[in-house]
């Protein structure tokens, strides 16, 4: 029996027919009840686990008093995207993992408490922030995802003139194109982006750096630059049949569904609705793609993952949600060939079974093929959710930006790249990671840029 109040949510049988949010959020009563469990440690471990260092015991103590307004003020002092983080952060790996209560029972549900503070504030109307007096310094932010938005807000708060350049037609990066509506409603992202505009940041949409302006031109025109260009080129496995009609990258599938709203008939962007969908990969992106495919009307959606349940990189909560919804988990299974049907379309996937051998360099047990285990799984759509490489466009026409052999930008411990005054962070530096780690990198870079501009 769980000690935490149970999160109200849409029942699985209903939610698989819509794109509305699954988790509905705590009531005030539930939040206060949960907050009262907090010990308010003098030396709070939870804060150390938070990449943006929210004063967690501070805001929880305000919830105990029923003062949600003051609680959100405390959160927003260090985190400009609380409604987003309250929903998509892997708290169980961060703040909640270090909560003292977790030793003997369940840690405080910090994420859920953060969420209700942000949601309450939105309901009563978000107060306009106080805009700092101008420093006269200009900063260009490339990319409006979690890293860019966080860097922008921290830099605007201290009075720098911030311009965000976004290649797509909406701001938010992965929060808009990647994470589905049922996990993160887009109206919430829009409101949090609007708040960053109110802090004074200007966002230029449809603006591709590396094409309209090069990085070198940006460094000429701005006093400092932050690169938060995110994940780019989707990875494929390199197996036979991957270019057949019906093989999507998760990026494309999710962009069509989320950014372009292909699930809604009044929008023009097409998407294939299929009977049998296979999603290759075991991360959050794979769960998002699988659950989206199910909502588009598929009869059966399977996750194909080469390791076992224990190694699935997705958040446990997302895995549980997917299982509740009837997603089939074909674990210890790996695709070896996509079978061609009529008109170069997908007509199944040949898979092999895997077993886990000795641990590899990453410390995880290496999956090995079970000889003679070839079998065919029915599919008319295959979605590859096996990661991305950084976006290469930013490097066109830039001199001196050091990158790794994998295309990620090299930065020092302060987030500064090989070009002075140019910082970088998020997936462009680390490769595919989480929203909150990108926000942490944006925060670090903002601090570095601020020091650089104050020299």
């Amino acid at each position, binding site marked *: 029996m769980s000690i935490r109040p149970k999160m109200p949510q849409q029942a699985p049988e209903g939610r698989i027919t819509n794109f509305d949010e699954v988790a509905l959020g705590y009531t005030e009563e539930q939040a206060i009840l949960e907050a009262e469990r907090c010990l308010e440690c003098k030396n709070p471990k939870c804060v150390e686990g938070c990449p943006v260092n929210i004063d967690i015991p501070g805001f929880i103590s305000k919830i105990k008093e029923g003062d949600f307004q003051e609680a959100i003020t405390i959160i927003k002092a260090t985190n400009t995207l609380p409604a987003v983080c309250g929903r998509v952060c892997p708290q169980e790996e961060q703040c909640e993992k270090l909560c003292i209560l977790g030793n003997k029972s369940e840690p405080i549900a910090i994420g859920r408490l953060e969420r209700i503070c942000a949601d309450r504030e939105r309901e009563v109307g978000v107060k306009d922030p106080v805009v700092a007096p101008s420093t006269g310094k200009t900063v260009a932010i490339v990319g409006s995802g979690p890293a860019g938005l966080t860097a922008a807000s921290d830099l605007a708060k201290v009075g720098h003139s911030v311009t965000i350049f976004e290649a797509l037609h909406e701001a938010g990066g992965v929060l808009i194109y990647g994470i589905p509506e049922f996990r993160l409603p887009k109206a919430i992202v829009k409101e949090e982006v609007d708040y960053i505009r109110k802090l004074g940041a200007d966002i230029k949409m449809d603006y591709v750096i590396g094409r309209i302006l090069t990085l070198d031109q940006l460094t000429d025109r701005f006093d400092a630059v932050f690169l938060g260009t995110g994940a780019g080129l989707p990875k494929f496995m390199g197996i036979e049949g991957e270019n057949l009609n019906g093989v999507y990258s998760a990026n494309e599938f999710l962009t069509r569904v989320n950014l372009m709203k292909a699930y809604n008939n009044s929008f023009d962007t097409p998407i294939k609705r299929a009977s049998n969908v296979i999603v290759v990969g075991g991360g959050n992106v794979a769960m998002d793609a699988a659950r989206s495919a199910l909502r588009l009307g598929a009869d059966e959606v399977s996750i194909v993952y080469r390791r076992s349940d224990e190694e699935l990189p997705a958040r446990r909560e997302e895995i549980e949600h997917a299982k509740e919804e009837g997603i089939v988990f074909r674990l210890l299974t790996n695709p070896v060939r996509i079978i061609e049907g009529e008109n170069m379309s997908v007509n199944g996937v040949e898979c092999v079974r895997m077993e886990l051998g000795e641990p590899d360099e990453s410390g995880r047990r290496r999956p090995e093929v079970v000889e003679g285990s070839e079998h065919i799984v029915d599919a008319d759509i295959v979605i590859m959710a096996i990661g991305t490489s950084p976006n*290469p466009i930013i490097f066109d026409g830039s001199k001196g930006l050091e990158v790794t052999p994998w295309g990620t930008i090299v930065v020092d411990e302060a987030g500064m790249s090989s070009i002075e005054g140019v910082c970088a962070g998020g997936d462009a530096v680390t490769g595919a990671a989480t929203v909150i780690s990108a926000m942490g990198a944006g925060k670090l870079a903002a601090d570095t840029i601020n020091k650089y501009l104050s020299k």
Partner: protein
Amino acid sequence: MAYKIIEKRQLVPDVHLMNIQAPDVAAAAKAGQFIILRIDEAGERIPLTIADYNADEGSVTIIFQEMGKTTKQLAKMSAGEELLDFVGPLGKESEIEKLGTVVLVGGGVGIAPIYPQAKEYRAAGNKVISIIGARNKDMLILEAEMIAASDEVLVATDDGSKGHHGFVTDLVKQLLDGEEHIDRIVAIGPPIMMRAVADVTGPYDVETLVSLNPIMVDGTGMCGGCRVNVGGEVKFACVDGPEFNAKDVDFNLLMSRLSFYRKEEADAITKSQKGCGDDCKCQ
């Protein structure tokens, strides 16, 4: 940000020219690049190759054929109206240098993207021979512009109503078999035409480039929808192209992938022609 239509005219039946106010795109655009536009909030993002650009006026020219729901909707718009999004320039620019003699082949609406190339190849000091083709003389676009931008223009029509009676490939072959040394051929048009050009030039030792326009969403290297097989390797047309060596392109794959949403496209046209509302279940 909205992008105003400064000028709109029909060139031939179903083919239209638009000048769009987009100063940032115009200032950076180069021959060979493309843009992605979105008409309104519910619209899809469609890629179109840039037909011309004027940095001083801040305008970019696109030429499009009415094909799907979006291009039909675009055709109904007039000067003074605005597009919601106009992103570019995207893709790599053509590598234009002084080579000697360059043959530019444009088929149908593909004549539009070879027009800026003709100007730039000529400005770089090349002799430009352009071969332009259409179904018939009434469907031929930009003939006067191509004559002005080229040293020589050859015309082919499928029905013989103007110029050579036959395909542009016949004229390409005649040139290849002729006296003049040809340093590069650039062919842009329907995939089937580009494949035919590649087939014709294959046996000859002449560099042949084509510009591919597969289905794409973002156009910035994120979705991977535009992947094409070039020389046995997977390339993303939006960041690795759109121009590739014709002899290496798997055109069958390209054509198959272009047809992936044929049913959805047909349904969308039917739905918009019937004027169905959001609640309509006619699909």
